[in-house]
């Protein structure tokens, strides 16, 4: 049994949220607080003070990571991934618990921390390198490699403010990729740059962990990258560690939440997802797979059927029903509408069920929420529920590529075949820096 490189024992982080307040406190607030303290204490005794709320961003998380392991940390937004990384990187202090780290730690939570736009590429390599914890000798020794990796040889003495964003990111990552700590903590920084460069970064990360025996903790929303790169994964949910094990198993667990109550059928009668000014017309939604069973997931191109139960309506000839799908960032990805169907919806009277069948597009894997809306033939929505339900698009190797796909490349996966063939004239395409 080797000594773990990282040992976390019951770490927790508490944040106090102030309702109605915005982040930073001012000295003025401090003075008012002091002045009103007696009054507040009185209110607290009476139990009416609701201005502060405790929020455990990370709660009682324990794990061990062996030297040389590559660990993925996954979870939804707000699950505590970033806070966990910040604790491990010593940026924030845990409220409880302790972490023992064996070896030099470097963290990479942002690309190009401390870069100064006025300084040249060369100057920024040294500045950023030393901010990341490199010794000057280490930077000297790897300087040429960094420059070559970033592909910025010609612009080494140009201020980085004149760099294209691609060059900037390449330079920043190149510096970070040449860090030589025993423990490397990386937060989704791979989600930048062009695809070609991402491939290079992934290669570098694999080399770092396999070849040089470094321990890597890698946070990502990209399940493809996690399964490809990491041997093990940790799954966080609302600050707690809910699963730990081989990355493919944990990723599956993450993609198919087995939480009780969520089955693919959604009761929308009294949902808080409907604004007050709408009528309760769509009372239930069900997501069914091709064989008619309730489902939470869909593989790309799989047939999906959504049924909506409608409350009795005061005669509506041809209402229009929309179902819109949004990604995890709340961006609308696609919608299906009864108006755009080859056969429009017939008139609706009394309680009825509307259903729609469609093929799930090959979307970037992950959770999508859907909104449902209903409007009379023209005019405004009279019912709108957002979100009404959810569906998880599975990662099933649709692209048949050994490399992961990044959400920044776009929301839709498209299978493509590439080839090269010799051309007659060689074109010199070089972008000059202005």
């Amino acid at each position, binding site marked *: 049994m080797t000594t773990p490189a990282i040992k976390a024992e019951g770490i927790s982080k508490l944040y106090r949220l102030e309702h109605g307040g915005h982040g930073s*406190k001012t000295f003025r607030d401090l003075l008012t607080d002091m002045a009103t303290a007696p009054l507040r204490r009185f209110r607290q005794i009476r139990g009416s003070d609701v201005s502060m709320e405790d929020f455990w961003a990370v709660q009682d998380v324990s794990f061990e990571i062996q030297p040389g392991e590559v660990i993925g940390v996954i979870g939804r937004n707000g699950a505590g991934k970033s806070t966990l990384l910040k604790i491990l990187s010593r940026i924030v202090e*845990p409220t*409880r*618990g302790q*972490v023992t780290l*064996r070896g030099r730690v470097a963290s990479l939570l942002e690309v190009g921390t401390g870069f100064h736009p006025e300084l040249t590429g060369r100057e920024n390599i*040294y500045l950023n390198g030393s901010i990341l*914890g490199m010794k000057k000798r280490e930077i000297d020794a790897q300087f040429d490699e960094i420059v070559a990796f970033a592909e910025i040889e010609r612009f080494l*003495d140009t201020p980085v403010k004149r760099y294209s964003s691609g060059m900037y990111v390449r330079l920043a990552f190149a510096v970070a990729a040449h860090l030589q700590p025993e423990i490397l903590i990386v937060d989704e920084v791979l989600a930048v740059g062009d695809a070609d460069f991402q491939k290079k970064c992934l290669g570098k990360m694999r080399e770092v962990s396999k070849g040089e025996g470094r321990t890597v903790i890698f946070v990502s929303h990209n399940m493809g990258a996690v399964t490809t790169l990491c041997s093990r994964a940790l799954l966080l949910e609302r600050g707690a560690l809910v699963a730990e094990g081989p990355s493919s198993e944990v990723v599956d667990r993450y993609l198919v939440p087995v939480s009780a109550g969520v089955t693919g059928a959604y009761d929308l009668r009294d949902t808080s997802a409907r604004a007050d000014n709408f009528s309760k017309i769509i009372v239930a939604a069900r997501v069914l797979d091709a064989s008619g069973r309730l489902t939470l997931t869909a593989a790309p191109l799989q047939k999906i059927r959504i049924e909506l139960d409608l409350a009795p309506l005061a005669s509506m000839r041809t209402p229009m029903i929309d179902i819109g799908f949004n990604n995890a960032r709340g961006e609308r990805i696609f919608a299906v509408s009864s108006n755009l169907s080859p056969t429009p919806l017939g008139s609706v009277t009394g309680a009825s069920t509307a259903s729609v069948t469609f093929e799930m597009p090959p979307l970037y894997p992950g959770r999508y929420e859907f909104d449902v809306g209903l409007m009379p033939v023209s005019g405004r929505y009279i019912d709108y529920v957002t979100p009404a339900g959810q569906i998880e698009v599975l990662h099933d190797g649709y692209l048949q590529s050994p490399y992961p796909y990044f959400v920044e490349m776009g929301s839709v996966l498209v299978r493509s075949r590439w080839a090269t063939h010799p051309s007659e004239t060689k074109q010199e395409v070089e972008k000059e820096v202005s």
Partner: protein
Amino acid sequence: MSNDIAQPLPTSAAAPDPVDKGPIREMVIRPRSGWIAIDWRELWEARELLYFLVLRDVKVRYKQTVLGVAWAVLQPFFTMLVFTVIFGRFAKIPSDGLPYAVFVFAGLLPWTYFSSNISQASMSLMNQQSLLTKIYLPRVFVPAASVGSGLIDLLVAFVVFAGMMVFYGVGVGPGVLALPLLVLLTTAASLGVGLALAALIVTYRDFRYVVPFLVQSWMYLSPVIYPVSMVPPQWQPLLALNPMAGIIDGFRSAIFGLPWNFTTLSVSSFSSIILLICGLYYFRRTERKFADVA
């Protein structure tokens, strides 16, 4: 033009050992509270970072401006001109028998250094929040690095001052050898104040509006435009509690060969050190919360 950043550091040139991290070190992260000791070993190991931060501040300061180093000349020169006309000519403030222009410039040298250090250091953390929230580094270095560009400005101002001394035909004595020590004291005092203000401003944003007012009031409490001898003797020890009182007085004694006022100087030296210690410890105490509040 700026290849010099890649030149070997004097600190590391002497160490021929290969790049290697030595034995694996264990580090424990756990909640702390109260006063936290300064981790001198960590600071020493990261000393190169301080060097690069200072280098950055100095380079950026002179790269971004049209006039470059000329600012370091013009700013104290015009201040001196204005003060000489207003306080020397109109208000007829005594100047220990020296030409008022020379007298006031000798005070402005340490004062400008002191006040610019405070202004720069106090805003340093707020202006570079990513250094607090995205990475761990010895945070003391961020405000401390502001001192570097102030030092360059001070050197330039000294050159201008030397020219004035020649112009007015004022000679210097061997006392000038004490100047580095006085500059060191100024650095200590300004760093103490700068660190405390930087920590306060990260936590309480509106504190930054206090800084210009504080600096302005502080100038009138320091013998920049008036000599210490103008203050009634029984009040002089009280004045000396202001570190800049003894330092500015010391500057004049050193440059003009005037008699030293050792009581004032020792009280001021003492309070400089106290300021630095208090500033450092307040900074350490609040440091662990920076990333939470920034």
